[in-house]
């Protein structure tokens, strides 16, 4: 195995060698890689963002960012769906001898749905403040790398996921730019139901 695939598999082996060493570390890795910890954590940060802001304008700006994040995630998920119509990559545990400490997903390994979705959710929020941005990026990286450690993704799956999330940004911005009136309507209704 040479070239990019060889490097990819070598990094996978290094990270995957962390699994199976102790039950405590396995529990930690599996929990961080789970479908619940990082996505819910990011969801809670967005939920907090919706209600926070010192001034009216700041709050409206935050709420707009939350909306853009959700739209960006939906577009990134659509890109994954379209890509998977033509492309399927076997999971590492299906073709190699790995330390598997996670359940066996049946969908394509590349791109990582987790990495694409969470990174797409986080990207628009990077404009808020440095501390929060760093925390969110750290959460995404931790979750994504854990999924390599537990044996269900190659590092390149994560990388392609991140690239798809970045690719979704211009599409989202174009969509946001041409739907201003609709957004204002949504915000008007939302602010009446959820006063802030």
């Amino acid at each position, binding site marked *: 195995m040479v070239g990019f695939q060889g490097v990819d598999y070598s990094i996978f082996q290094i990270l995957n060698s962390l699994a199976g060493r102790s039950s405590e570390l396995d529990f930690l890795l599996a*929990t961080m890689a789970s*479908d619940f910890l990082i996505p819910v954590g990011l969801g809670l940060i967005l*939920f907090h963002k*919706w*209600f*926070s802001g010192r001034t*009216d304008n700041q709050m409206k700006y935050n709420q707009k960012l939350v909306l853009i994040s959700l739209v960006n995630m939906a577009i990134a998920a659509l890109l994954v769906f379209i890509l998977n119509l033509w492309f399927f990559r076997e999971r590492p545990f299906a073709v190699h001898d790995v330390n598997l400490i996670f359940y066996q*997903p049946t969908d394509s390994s590349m791109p990582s749905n987790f990495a694409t979705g969470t990174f797409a959710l986080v990207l628009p929020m990077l404009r808020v403040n440095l501390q929060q941005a760093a925390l969110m990026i750290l959460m995404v990286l931790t979750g994504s790398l854990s999924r390599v450690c537990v044996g269900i993704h190659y590092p390149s799956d994560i990388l392609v996921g991140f690239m798809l999330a970045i690719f979704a940004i211009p599409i989202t911005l174009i969509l946001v730019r041409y739907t201003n009136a609709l957004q204002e309507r949504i915000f008007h209704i939302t602010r009446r139901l959820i*006063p*802030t």
Partner: protein
Amino acid sequence: MGFSLAYFVACSLACIGILQLASISPRSRYLQLFKLGSLRKFVGLLLIFASFLLFFLTGDRVISDHEGGLDANQQAIIFSLSALFSYIFCAVVSQLILKVIIKVDSTNEITCSPIHKKDYYELTFSELQEKNWSDFKVWITQYFKS
């Protein structure tokens, strides 16, 4: 407790915690469950950590959606429902205990912050939702008449 219910309970607790942290902002003070700011912060953080511990330590949570887990769509729906539930819970309990008033100005811009203009009226959370409902009925009737 079933997996979906455990997820709903954990998300609801975490969302209530988040709302207590957010209600430190004067604009969201109608969601306060306690008057004391430091107590809200403490309870908020406690609820968030407790919810994660409760969820992950009370059963095997690393399971596929084919084996009783939740797929991404189910997760999104349950998370949204728990966020809505926690929002209504905080707003209603806050109204009952602390009786926080929401200010609505004549252009229907709603805020909890001090309004300098004189033309606003004060409503509780439930009165505001009643007003929203009656305004919606008027709007929908006019829409179909025209």
